[in-house]
């Protein structure tokens, strides 16, 4: 049975806190943009954009990044992920980028995303916001903003659910996934 790590209220609070932390660390919204990693990083980015708009009355620009073509396991994965569109309709040069993803695990997705971002320009800096950091990094990558740190074993499955696609806001963990 999956157990709940964060319910919808806790998840919402965590995202609110991250929004404040982003503004605090960057001294406001100047040159700040959000880039969500498809699929669920995009929903985090959207939530952060809305929270920041409510706090600062500025709506940040937001990009969507599909990292499929930057993965280091092309052809190895059992099921090829369907390639979705990358939509970054503005230059990333000299921008402060907050990269958004749902779960930080090995760090390989983030490595791929950083490579992808570099193809769109030379940003001033890239920061990382995630809802869950579950450890087990295989690359020297760390998050700047974390909803919740959770110690996990490697074969657990952590799933962040968003109302937009999953019908509810919730973080669950499955023991020893298939």
């Amino acid at each position, binding site marked *: 049975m999956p157990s709940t790590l964060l319910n919808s209220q806790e998840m919402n609070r965590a995202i609110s806190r991250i929004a404040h932390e982003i503004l605090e660390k960057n001294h406001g919204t100047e040159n700040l943009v959000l880039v969500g990693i498809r699929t669920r990083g995009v929903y985090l980015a959207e939530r952060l954009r809305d929270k920041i708009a409510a706090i600062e009355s500025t709506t940040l620009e937001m990009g969507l990044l599909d990292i499929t073509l930057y993965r280091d396991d*092309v052809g190895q994965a059992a099921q*090829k*992920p369907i390639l979705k569109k990358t939509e970054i309709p503005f230059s990333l040069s000299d921008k402060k980028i907050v990269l958004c993803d749902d779960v930080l695990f090995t760090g390989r997705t983030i490595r791929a995303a950083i490579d992808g971002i570099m193809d769109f320009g030379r940003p001033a800096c890239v920061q990382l916001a995630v809802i869950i950091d579950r450890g087990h990094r295989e690359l020297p990558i760390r998050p700047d903003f974390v909803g919740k740190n959770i110690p996990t074993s490697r074969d657990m499955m952590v799933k962040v659910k968003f109302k937009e696609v999953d019908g509810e806001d919730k973080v669950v963990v499955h023991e020893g996934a298939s």
Partner: protein
Amino acid sequence: MSLKGKDILGMRDLTEEEIVDILDSADSFKEISEREIKKVPALRGRTIINLFLEPSTRTRTSFEIAGKRLSADVINISGSGSSLAKGETLMDTARNLEAMRPDILVLRHSGPGAPHMIAKLLKSSVINAGDGAHEHPSQALLDLLTIRQNKKELKGLKVAIVGDISHSRVARSNILAMNTLGMKVTVVGPPTMIPVEIEKLGVSVEYNLERAIRDVDVILMLRIQLERQESLLFSSLREYSNLYGLTSEKLKKAPSDVLIIHPGPVNRGVEISPDVMDGPHSLILDQVTNGVAVRMALMYLLLGANLETNN
């Protein structure tokens, strides 16, 4: 998602689902060509050989650019500069090329079925870039992508294919694919250019252009092969052009939102008048742009599928 076969030889082999997957992927690949840095690392370290034994500008360049934008190493070989000119057989050339371990061989050849024969021989994937008057699958796919971008849904669309149907691999690949996708095809041309019993392919036949385009969504104009002018398919170029050339006058008979596509190269003023070619209905240059995206999708999907079976 990946393709079931190791090769792309013709639209005959592709299911509706595979075609839709290719078009969806191509839609996503399009964005890469809009970037300032038009390159992704997806096929880094893979080798693609373009073996073009018939003249080609668009298709060869398109395959080359597609491979390079995916970071593959792309090698081009043309007939005149190759050992085929010294008398080596196609099969030996293919075996020798395979000995250098390419991942994909893209073949254009004047012999129908040449890529099929090579595909059986090689472990590498083979993409048919046109085999005689047989098939040209990547062209049909880019035509479909171009139509879909402008008409939302393909199913149920009415298409007129106009010109030398008998000698056109573009017509055949499109007919096969459009049938698979539930589109309605009418072929149009002088009787000498329409194969007997083509109705068995599931198309209707019309000999009058103006009548044929009255209620179509898409007009696919084929290139009139000037080199065939000697072969009595039509009495003069002018007569063909008068009867089957698409002019703005004839276009008035078609619906106002009709799309015009042409695989190129165009004989301006023969099968299509310059004002129609450069007019608002024409998507000829969009087709070329889409061609790169479609070929990127094919290469990407093929290499993924290949590795899975080798695992």
